């Protein structure tokens, strides 16, 4: 199989990993802000 095939899988894995990292950081920031308000 050529690179156009495998590169899609690598891209998808990196994209989803980066997204979850961002969601986790955002959730932590939200929790910290909420506890500061309380």
């Amino acid at each position, binding site marked *: *199989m050529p690179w156009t095939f495998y590169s899609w899988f690598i891209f*998808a894995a990196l*994209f*989803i990993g980066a*997204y979850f990292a961002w969601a986790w950081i*955002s959730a932590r920031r939200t929790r910290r802000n909420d506890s500061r308000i309380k």
Partner: protein
Amino acid sequence: MSILIIVLTGYFAAVTTLAWFGYRRTRTASDFVVAGRTLGALVGGATLAATQISAGTFVGTVGLHYLAGVSFAWAWPGVWLGWIVAVVFVAPKLRESGALTIPDYFARRYGPICRSVSAGLIVVAYTIFLVAQYKASGIIVHAVLGWPEWTGIALILASTTVYSLLGGLHGGARIDLMQSLVMVTGVVASVPYMLGHLGGLDGLAHRLEAIDPRLLGWYYRPREVVAFAASFGLSLAATPLEITRFLAMRDLTAARYAVGVGFIFQAIIGASVMMIGMSMRALFPDLPSGDLASSVMAAHVLTPIAGSLLVVAAFSAIMSTVNALLLVAAASVVHDLYAAFVERPGPDRRLLAANRIAVVLLALVPVWFAVREVPLVQFIVLFQAKLVASFFFAPIVIGLNWRRSTAAGALSSMLAGSITCVGWSLMRQPPFGLDAVFPGVAVSIAVFLVVSLAGSTTPLQDHQAPLAERRA
């Protein structure tokens, strides 16, 4: 065929049971439309994925991979970017607004005329989308069971309308989770079997190379792939079908994780659908239509159990999208047209009954179109995506984040965007070979900005004031 009927019966029984549980939890119109705003990340992610993955994926996307090979898979990043725009720029402000539907948000932000126009467009665009779903179910039933296409349409119509009627989004979201798991199981189970037939990945590559070398490279040129990705992405960033799901989630953190869960479901299904389309091209290079690839595979290539699972997975994709389309379109009709203008304020029980009546009526209208000859399923799906993007992207994505946007700007951008999109789509040879989504969205944004800026010298009316200001 008997195994398929047993699997289908079990599947419909499970759907009905979950719908019944949803019915018992549905007490108000808010329960019906946004599941009482209680969905967590897993159910939320499943409902986002199941709503987006439709007949377009199981029949149309398989068909396009059959036709074009690997290159169409690069449309998925467009879908994902659309969701990221939705969760970052749309979901937080939309949740803050307290709106129950998108036209409800339009009423608060831009006034009653924009509410009616947006509710009307939702009904038109989603009727077009429903035609594709019905058509696909007819194709599957005809190819797999040999029954006439209208029986597939009747099956989807009856089953989905019943569970949409009963459970609203409480039932719909949990059924979406089950359907997402069924879809993943159905497609993933098919791939090793297909590759076994072809001698693995290398065998598949050799056969495709012999048929057309472009199937392994850029059959669709990058410019065309960008057009597909943009159609899906710009539409998903603002389509009421998806973004109203964010309103149903417990909080913003759940919504963010839900998008990630949706990505995982989509990546697995997208990769499997690509393998199925390409494997079918290698095995049956001369099918009359790519739309037939998944049904022919289920009926003639897979083992009876794997084939049955794939058919149930395709039905899951169709039913989850039909359910979402019916709920959103019914809410537009009842909450934003009927309750807003005919019966103000309506008792909640009567609104709930009106929602259920609207579901039945809206489910029946597209049947008239679906029993006729229509283009490839994926092209119908793409057309409604372009129309929704041209209509909603500017007033929702920019309107939520730009203080100077006005009702006149929103109304004129919606009309200019949709007219441009439809007009461009009707051209035989569009200027510069440009896909209709680009001029549609560009004109809509330009008109939105210019008219809003030109009109902002007059004082803002109450409904035009930024939401944060009104809360203060």
